[in-house]
């Protein structure tokens, strides 16, 4: 769980956030320093409003790019699932049931996830302990999660939705065998 791979998307996300947060902190530091000085209101308006237009434009461009790109990488299962190994996943207080419980490496798996009682969160961690995806287990509904499992080993399943007393120990495993 605690091991770190620098190539992991989460680490890239974390570093991006850290850089942005530090930039913001620096900006607020500069503004706080400048707050004690005296600058004419007209000058602040002239420069500030000029800059604000560019700031809005920048945020719009970033937004269109980031949101636009993200829409091409949606994790929702598509298609009928033909050619995929369907693994039926059922969550309940406080267990996971998977059928089948193992697949060969390289399998294109469709996890068909539901719950027999309350909402649970099906979180799948690879053999290194990295969260590679999640989907909710909801009573009365089947959520389908498509994943290509390219690494052999024991994958861990953790509950990612508060489901009651033993939520934090609701675990199971799923094995990807070598061919």
């Amino acid at each position: 769980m605690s091991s770190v791979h620098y190539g992991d998307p989460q680490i890239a996300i974390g570093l991006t956030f850290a850089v942005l947060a530090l930039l913001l902190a620096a900006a607020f530091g500069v503004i706080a320093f400048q707050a004690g000085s005296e600058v004419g209101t007209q000058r602040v308006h002239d420069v500030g409003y000029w800059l604000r237009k560019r700031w809005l434009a920048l945020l719009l461009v970033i937004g269109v790019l980031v949101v636009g790109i993200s829409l091409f990488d949606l994790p929702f299962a598509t298609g009928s699932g033909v050619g995929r190994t369907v693994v039926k996943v059922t969550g309940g207080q406080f267990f996971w049931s998977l059928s089948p419980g193992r697949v060969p490496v390289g399998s294109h798996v469709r996890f068909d996830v539901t719950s027999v009682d309350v909402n649970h969160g099906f979180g799948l961690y690879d053999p290194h302990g990295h969260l590679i995806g999640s989907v909710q287990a909801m009573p009365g509904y089947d959520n389908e999660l498509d994943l290509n499992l390219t690494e052999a080993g024991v994958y861990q399943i953790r509950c990612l939705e508060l489901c009651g007393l033993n939520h934090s120990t609701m675990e199971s495993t799923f094995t990807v065998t070598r061919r």
Partner: protein
Amino acid sequence: MEAATTASPPVLHPRALAFTVEARGSERRIGLLFGATGVVLIAGMGVLGLIMRLTQATVISLSPAWFYRLLTLHGVGMITGALLATMGALWYVLHASVPLRTGRMLATYVVTIAGVLAVLVATLAGGFGAGWAFLPPLPFYPAGQWSVWSESLFFVGNLLVGAGFCVFCIDVLEQTTNTYGGLVRTLGWHYLRGREEKAPPPQAIAATVVAIDGLISCAVGSTILLGLLGRTYDHTVGIDALVAKNLVYFFGHSIANLTIYLAAAVVYVLVPRYAGRPYETTKVFVAGWTGSLVFIATAYSHHLYMDFVQPTWAGIVSEVASYGALLPVAVITIYSMTMLIWGSRYQWTLASTLLYIGFAGWAIGGVGAVIDSLIPINFRLHNTTWVVAHFHTYLILCVVVWAVAFLAHLLERDAGRTSSRAATAWTVALILVGGYGLTGTWFVEGALGIPRRYAIQPSGTSGYSIVGASFALLLALGFLSLFIQLITLARSAWERRHVYPLVVHMDSWTGTHYRTRVTSAESGAALEVARPVRRGVPLASHAQLGFGVAACIVALAAFFPQVINASEVSNRYHHLDHAGQFFLGAMAGLLLGSLPAVSRRFGDRSSLGLLMVLAAPMLMMLIMVPRIYEPLERDPFEHGLYHLAMAAFGLVTGLGATRLGLVTGRVMFILSVGMPLMFAAAMK
């Protein structure tokens, strides 16, 4: 409107004297009551947070049962504390220009506190621990931890908190739209289109947006809470987990989100007082808050990204709205305020320093939130501690800090001084290091995939909890130091109380007179509040009345035997038919109460109208459970009476709405008739 005065205490910027108004006694008292109660509640809930973090670090031992009780109480209590403080602060800054009613605000206080007490008993004594989001159907699967009475009490407590907020929002919407001449003018749209020279002040526009979104959230929240309450005494009631989840998150997300927007409306008034530059409404401001009106109500669905059965378009709308919500915040609120501060010889006091650091908390926490709102990223971070990290960043380091800043502002002004520079510096340093250390640890844990809401942390990760708990202790020390300074300021203010003479004022709500202390520069006449008035009725013209008649005729179909029989196929359709009967009654009530002769006869019974419009839909939904209506259906007469009762509840609702004026009356009518529809969708 009161006149500008030159007697402000020296804690403010010298230039601010030109546009800063003295607070009336009622404003100070309401501000202090709500601010102090909210901050005390926040402090108590903060202690619970610290206990939970120490438990995760295995420094102290707490059973999972108690962990989840505290987690549930911590969530509801924190949001309610923030809500109380920010509502009081908004009332304080808005009352100068809008005749809000003191009685309504006190009703809000009493109802909200009753709700908090109910949740306190339900969790600590009753053992309820389904989390503050109470994701259905978890409350009904207690795993031996709580009983029916505690889940019922928890729902009632949440309903009361929602009702308290609702009363506040109704009063704000009623009085802003009455003061500025209708919804379109109040939101500044006439000004935006160049039809008018002047727009309402920023705090009025922001307050109106908050009130509208707040009322929508309360209607949605009340619907699901009433459905769940009904489920406690009729176990045959089914719950559609997906619809229920949508309703719960719409309510929870929006209410939590609105605390920050409430606080922003206050900041528009307070920051200029320390920067010495007035902040006025611009077209960009109006456009931004119009965007916020939409984005606040549409962003919630990002909580359901990992529910793949939710329509894809809903996720995309939410993703766009979540990013869109960033724009007004980044381009208007934070940017404009920092422009105001830049080169202003900002008056650094305890309050103004807290106000300033709040902007950083909102900005940094907001970036974390926007990152998580992208669906492919959420796929890797959903329900990890990343979520905890970003919302604690802007709740602790912005909303809570601003709530305390408001209290400090009141006390500084009354005390005529601020804390020492050294004390302020140490306090703020502790809060910043402790706060960002605490949330930073959660960000790291989230990036590593550690799940949230774990009473027992996954093996090998307790080190993060120990680091996080250490920062949490620093944060607690910072807040302790802050509270000591507030108490010192309060003592100074108390010692100065005789500086202010006693004068007689008229209560705008009751018309009675009372004695209050004001600063020497204030005159009784200048401080008199305009009397609240009701303007218009929901159906004002002949065409609108005609529309009402036509809608009633169409809604009569809900009483046709063929329709009633057809609706018997499922509870959902049955409830839909009841919703139709309720609509017929509500429309008839709206029509009747809008008729000039009837409206004159009723007079200005706004508070009665508010009570009717809140209570009638709730009662209607409380009796809409099979256990109550199925025995009645065996007898055609009793069955008919039951359906007439549905319409009667509607009639009361519609009549009540007409007493709230044109805008608020229409809004409450639409929300009230929408509630049974949502109920029918969620409870099957």
